[in-house]
C-alpha cells in the first residue's frame, strides 16, 4: 500500500512538473529555441530596438519588413544547393559584384582588369569587414570558390563552376589530380584576387559571378555544424542573421559594418516567416501580420486583390522529355526517337489552354529551349533579335494528326492501337499530376492515343528513375543563368541532362549542335555568339528529345504600403536593396 502511494505521489509530481514546464513556454520569440540574440550582440552588429519581437498581430513599423518565404535548407555555403539558401547569402554577405534586377555592380571590387587573352581576371578589393569587425581579405573570396571545388568538402556545385567558368585546373583539382595551389583561383595579396580561366569564356564578362567571402578557419572550426544556426554562420553583408527558428522564422538586423550601409537596404529589421499552408499565408497577409508573400499559389490568385500581385518570371523551362533509348526496348526506342511522333505530340497541345487551366503562373512557350529571360539586352529580347521556328502556341490539331500518320507510316504501324505502351513519369505532387493528366488527355483527345499511362513517384524515387533512364516520357524543369549556354549545355553530348548517368548514355546526340554550342561559348563577339546560340536552339527544337510546355514564374503578394520590392530569378535573390515600408 505504501508503495502504491509512493508511485501515485510520483505520478502526480511528474504531472505537475510537466504542467509547470508547459507554462514556461517554448515560444520562438522567447529565446527557448534559440539563443542567437547573444551571438548578434557578440558580433558587434547593429541590433536596433525594432528587432525585438512584435507581439500580437502587427508587423511593426516601417523599420521592419515581415514576409513569408520558404526557409533556407542550410547556410553552409559550400554544401548549399538551393536557391532558398542563396536568398539568405544575398542578404547577409558581401559580394564582389552584387546583382540587382539583372545588372551586376561592383561592391567589394574597387577596380578590375582582364588580360589580352581574356583568361586572367584581376580584382583589386576595397577594405571591408565581417560583422564582428575583423577584416575580409582576398583569401576569403578565393576560399569560397576553392572550397566548392574541393572533393573533400561535400559540395555539389563543382561541376557548375567548372562548366560555366572553366577555372584553370579546376577539374583536375576536383578529380584529386593536382594541388589547390595550381588552381586558377588565387589571392595575390590581402586585397587582390586573381581568377584564371583555361580558355576564354565568352558569356563571362568578369562581373557576372556570385562570389561571397568565406573564412577558412571558421569553416574548419565549425566542422559539420557549419551553417546550421546563426552561431555557426558568419555575416558580412547588408544584414546579420540574428535568429533562425527552424520551420518558423528568420530574423535579420541591419549591419552597419556593411560597405554600402548608408545607401542600400535601409529597412532595419527583416522577418522572414515560414507558412507552408497557403491559406494561412493569405490570412496573415489579409490580417496585416505580414507585408509580403513571396509565392502565391495558383488557387489564391483570384482571392487576393489584383493590385497587390506582382509577377516575376523564372529563368526556367518546363518540358516533356523523351527517353529515346526506350528503356532497352527497340520498338519503344524507335517510337520515342521518331521526329514525326514527337512533332505530333507537340502540335497536339494547346499550350495556352493548358497553362491557363493548370498553371496560371506559367507562360506558355512554343519555341524556347532557353528561358526567355536569357540572352537579352536592356534594349531588346533574344527571342526578337534571333527568331527561330516552332509550333503555334494554341497547337494545330490537323497538323498533329498528319505528323502522327507520318510516324505510323515510318514505323510500320497501321493504327495507333498498335503503338507500344508508354509511361509518363512525374512527381507525386498535385501540380505535376494535374499537368500529366491534362497532357495525356489532350494527346488522347486530339490523336486518339490511349497508350500513355501516368506513373507518379515520390521526388527522390522519380529522380532516381530518370537518372537510370527508367521512363518513356518525363516532365522536366530546367533552370539556367543569364547566358543561353547554361540551357544549351544541358543537351550537348555528355551534357548533364542528356548524359545524366555520366557514362556516355546520351538521349540526344548531334555533332552540329555540339559544334555550334562549343563555338558560341568561345566567340567573344556578342552578336555572332547569340546567332550561333539561336542556330543551336533551332536544332534542338527540330531534333531534340523535348516537347516544350511553358516557362514558369511566380506571383508575389505585396502590401500597398511597400515600395521597391524586387525579385529576380536570374540574380537568384530577393532584392530588398531599395525597399521602403511606409506603414
Amino acid at each position: 500500500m505504501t508503495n502504491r502511494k509512493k508511485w501515485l505521489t510520483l505520478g502526480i509530481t511528474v504531472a505537475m512538473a510537466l504542467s509547470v514546464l508547459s507554462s514556461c513556454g517554448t515560444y520562438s520569440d522567447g529565446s527557448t529555441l534559440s539563443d542567437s540574440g547573444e551571438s548578434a550582440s557578440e558580433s558587434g552588429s547593429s541590433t536596433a530596438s525594432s528587432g525585438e519581437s512584435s507581439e500580437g498581430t502587427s508587423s511593426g513599423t516601417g523599420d521592419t519588413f515581415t514576409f513569408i518565404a520558404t526557409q533556407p535548407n542550410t547556410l553552409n555555403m559550400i554544401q548549399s544547393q538551393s536557391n532558398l539558401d542563396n536568398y539568405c547569402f544575398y542578404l547577409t554577405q558581401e559580394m564582389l559584384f552584387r546583382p540587382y534586377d539583372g545588372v551586376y555592380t561592383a561592391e567589394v571590387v574597387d577596380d578590375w582588369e582582364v588580360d589580352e587573352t581574356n583568361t586572367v581576371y584581376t580584382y583589386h578589393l576595397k577594405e571591408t569587414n565581417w560583422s564582428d569587425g575583423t577584416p575580409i581579405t582576398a583569401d576569403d573570396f578565393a576560399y569560397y570558390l576553392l572550397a566548392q571545388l574541393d572533393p573533400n568538402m561535400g559540395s555539389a556545385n563543382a561541376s557548375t563552376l567548372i562548366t560555366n567558368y572553366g577555372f584553370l585546373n579546376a577539374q583536375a583539382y576536383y578529380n584529386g589530380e593536382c594541388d589547390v595551389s595550381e588552381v586558377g583561383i588565387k589571392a595575390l595579396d590581402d586585397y587582390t584576387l586573381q581568377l584564371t580561366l583555361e580558355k576564354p569564356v565568352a558569356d563571362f564578362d568578369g562581373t557576372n559571378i556570385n562570389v561571397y567571402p568565406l573564412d577558412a578557419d571558421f569553416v574548419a572550426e565549425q566542422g559539420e555544424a557549419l551553417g546550421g544556426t546563426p552561431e555557426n554562420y558568419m555575416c558580412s553583408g547588408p544584414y546579420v542573421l540574428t535568429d533562425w527558428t527552424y520551420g518558423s522564422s528568420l530574423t535579420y538586423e541591419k549591419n552597419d559594418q556593411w560597405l554600402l550601409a548608408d545607401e542600400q537596404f535601409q529597412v532595419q529589421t527583416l522577418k522572414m516567416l515560414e507558412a507552408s499552408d497557403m491559406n494561412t499565408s493569405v490570412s496573415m497577409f489579409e490580417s496585416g501580420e505580414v507585408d509580403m508573400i513571396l509565392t502565391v499559389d495558383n488557387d489564391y490568385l483570384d482571392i487576393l486583390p489584383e493590385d497587390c500581385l506582382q509577377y516575376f518570371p523564372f529563368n526556367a523551362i518546363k518540358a516533356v522529355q523523351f527517353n529515346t533509348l526506350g528503356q532497352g526496348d527497340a520498338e519503344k526506342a524507335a517510337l520515342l526517337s521518331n521526329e514525326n511522333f514527337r512533332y505530333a505530340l507537340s502540335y497536339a497541345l494547346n499550350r495556352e489552354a493548358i497553362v491557363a487551366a493548370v498553371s496560371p503562373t506559367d507562360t506558355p512557350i512554343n519555341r524556347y529551349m532557353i528561358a526567355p529571360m536569357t540572352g537579352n539586352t536592356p534594349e531588346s529580347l533574344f527571342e526578337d533579335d534571333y527568331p527561330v521556328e516552332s509550333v503555334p502556341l494554341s497547337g494545330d490539331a490537323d497538323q498533329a494528326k498528319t505528323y502522327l500518320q507520318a510516324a505510323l507510316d515510318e514505323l510500320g504501324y497501321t493504327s495507333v492501337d498498335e503503338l507500344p505502351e508508354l509511361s509518363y513519369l512525374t512527381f507525386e505532387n498535385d501540380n505535376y499530376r494535374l499537368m500529366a493528366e491534362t497532357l495525356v488527355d489532350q494527346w488522347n483527345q486530339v490523336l486518339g492515343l490511349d497508350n500513355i499511362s501516368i506513373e507518379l513517384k515520390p521526388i527522390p524515387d522519380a529522380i532516381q528513375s530518370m537518372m537510370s533512364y527508367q521512363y518513356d516520357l518525363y516532365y522536366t524543369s530546367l533552370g539556367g543563368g543569364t547566358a543561353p549556354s547554361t540551357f544549351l549545355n544541358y543537351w550537348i553530348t555528355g551534357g548533364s541532362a542528356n548524359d545524366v548517368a555520366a557514362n556516355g548514355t546520351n538521349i540526344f546526340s548531334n555533332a552540329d549542335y555540339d559544334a555550334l554550342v562549343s563555338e558560341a561559348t568561345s566567340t567573344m563577339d556578342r552578336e555572332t555568339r547569340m546567332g550561333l546560340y539561336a542556330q543551336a536552339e533551332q536544332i534542338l527544337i527540330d531534333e531534340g528529345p523535348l516537347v516544350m510546355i511553358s516557362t514558369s514564374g511566380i506571383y508575389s503578394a505585396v502590401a500597398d504600403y511597400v515600395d521597391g520590392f524586387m525579385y529576380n530569378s536570374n540574380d537568384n535573390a530577393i532584392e530588398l536593396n531599395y525597399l521602403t515600408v511606409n506603414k
Partner: protein
Amino acid sequence: MVCKELIPLKKYILQRLVISVITLWLIVTVCFFLLRLLPGNPFASTTIMTQETLDRMMAYYGLDQPLWKQYLTYMGNLLQGNFGYSLKYAGRSVNYVIASTFPVSAQLGFQALVFGIPVGLLLGILAAKFRGRAMDAGINVFVIICTAVPTFIIAALLQFVLGLKLGLFPVAQWKSFSYTILPTLCLSLGTISGYARSMRTLMLEVDRQDYLKTAKAKGLGNARIVIFHQIRNAIIPMITNLGTEIAGMLMGSYVIEKIFSIPGMGAYFVDSIQGLDYTMVMGLVIFQAVIVIVANFIVDLLYGIIDPRIRVA
C-alpha cells in the same frame, strides 16, 4: 489448484527494462535497413545533378560503404548519443533539431491533452447521464463532426472566424500563449471526441453493474453515486491507452504544425521521409520509439503495482 508465484517488483522492472532495450534495438535495426531499401537517394532534387557529383556526395557521407559497415558506424555513434547530421539540411544536427522542436510539439500536445481529456470525459458523462435527450444528441452530433471533418478544414475555419474576422487570436506562428490557443483547440478535438465516445459507453456499462444498484439502494445521493462510483469505475479502462496517446501527442502533428506554422517535430517526420534524409528519419524514429517505450514501461509498471496479478510468472 496451482497457485502461481508473484514476480518481485524489482525483477519485474528489470524484465520490462530488458524487453524495452531489445525492442529499441530491433526498431533501430529494422528501420536502418528498411530505409536503405527505399528507392532514391537523399541528394535527389528537382535540379539536375550529374552522376559524378552524386557519387562524390554518396562517398562524402559514407553512403558508398557496405551496408553492414554503415550500420556498425551508425550504431557506434548512436551508443554515444550522437544521431548525426541531416543529409538534407547541412549543418543541422539531428540532436539539435530534436532538442529545439520536441519542446514545442510536447507543449502543444500536452496542452491539447490537458484541455481535451477533461472536456471529452465531461461530455461523455453528460451524454450518458442525459441519454436519449437533446443534450445526448447534441454531444453526439459534435463528436461526429469532430471525427468526420478533417482537421485542416476545422483549422482553416477557426483561423478565418476567430483569427481573421473576429481578431481574437493570431492566425499562425508560435510567439506566446495566445498563439497556441487555436492549434491547441484543433489538436484537442480528436481527443475530445474519442474520450467523449468512450466515456459515454463505459458510463452506460457501469450503470448496469450490481454495485451501482447497491449504492442506489443504500440511498446515496445522485451526485455521489456518479462521482464516486460510476465515473471512478468507468475511467479505469481508459488509462490503458493513455501512455501511447500521450507519446503520440507529444511527438507533434504534421497537419496542425504546418497549418499554424509551428516549429515542431511533426513536419520533420514527413519531410525527412519524403526526402530520404536517413539520419533525420532514424533520429526521429528512435526518439519516438524511446518515448513510446518509456510511456508503455511506466504504464506497465503502474499496472504491475495497481494490479499485482499482471506480475504473475
